[in-house]
């Protein structure tokens, strides 16, 4: 099996978590796809598929986060608005709308919630809540001190909770 085939196996294993993380950080599909494509291209150049690093997923997330930041800078430079997914999206302003049933629902609702957080806070929240990484592991991905991660995580959790209490929005049910 050559190195490209080995790498394609790695891609198959990690493409869903990578895309989910990119969507949670960037909030729109187009930027998330760009970031994922760049991240895997870079990963192929730097990785030896025959002997991958021990914490391969964390290493991939590090690369992906850098590409997400690049995507954010590109977006800010071109002043693009966040685009909705191409599926039919529900009206986000409908007061009775509480339960996201599809990805598009979640993206639309997430715009309001996650829109109050910065990219770093969104990444930390994703890694802490979804991937269940410890603060030290998250600090390794972000190349910062665990104390910094704790502070950002605290602020993210407080902001969302305060937003929910202010708007009296109950949690979406699965």
């Amino acid at each position, binding site marked *: 099996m050559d190195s490209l085939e080995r790498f394609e196996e790695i891609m198959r294993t990690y493409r*869903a978590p990578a895309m989910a993380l990119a969507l949670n950080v960037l909030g729109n599909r187009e930027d998330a796809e760009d970031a994922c494509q760049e991240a895997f291209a870079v990963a*192929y150049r730097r990785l030896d598929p025959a002997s991958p690093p021990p914490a391969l997923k964390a290493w991939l997330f590090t690369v992906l986060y850098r590409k997400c930041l690049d995507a954010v800078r590109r977006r800010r430079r071109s002043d693009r608005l966040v685009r909705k997914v191409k599926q039919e999206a529900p009206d986000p302003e409908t007061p009775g709308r509480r339960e996201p049933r599809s990805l598009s629902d979640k993206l639309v609702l997430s715009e309001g919630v996650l829109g109050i957080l910065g990219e770093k806070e969104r990444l930390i929240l994703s890694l802490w809540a979804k991937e269940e990484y410890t603060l030290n592991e998250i600090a390794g991905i972000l190349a910062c001190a665990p104390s910094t991660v*704790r*502070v950002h995580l*605290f602020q993210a959790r407080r902001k969302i*909770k305060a937003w929910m209490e202010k708007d009296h929005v109950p949690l979406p049910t699965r």
Partner: protein
Amino acid sequence: MFRCRLAEFLVKVLPLSWARDLVLRRHMERCPRCTERLLSRAEARDWLIQDDEVEDDPRFWPAVRDRIRRDVAAAGLGMPALRPVWQRAAAVAGFLILAGAGFWLYKELGHGSVSTTSQALLRFRVNSLTVGGEPAAAVVIQPPEPDLVIVWVDHRPSSQ
């Protein structure tokens, strides 16, 4: 209640992250009242997109594979490039080799490139020369031997 407000105030105003971290660990994450005001892991998970919710575009991942194959073909390599640590090591080694070669060349050739006359002038200057009280002309000759300088004096007595 006072402690909660004090802790909240300190987290906002303390400039150093380690100090804020200390307040968070000592109070905010232990006090039941304060932790109630924080989003829990389970609550956060409900807002975040999960792996099984990612709807794959059937064209996207094949496009990523094609992009990688194109990069490989363009680079002409079937293997991934050197890891960054080895790239840096190669760059440092290359720089040291070039610097060493440049220094050696300068030592070997730096003074030899000067013409014989110029070199003699650099090493010797005969401001005035007299023989028997009469002025004489001097020619400085620098043979290849580095430590030898010949000064040829041309004197014609005025009586001749």
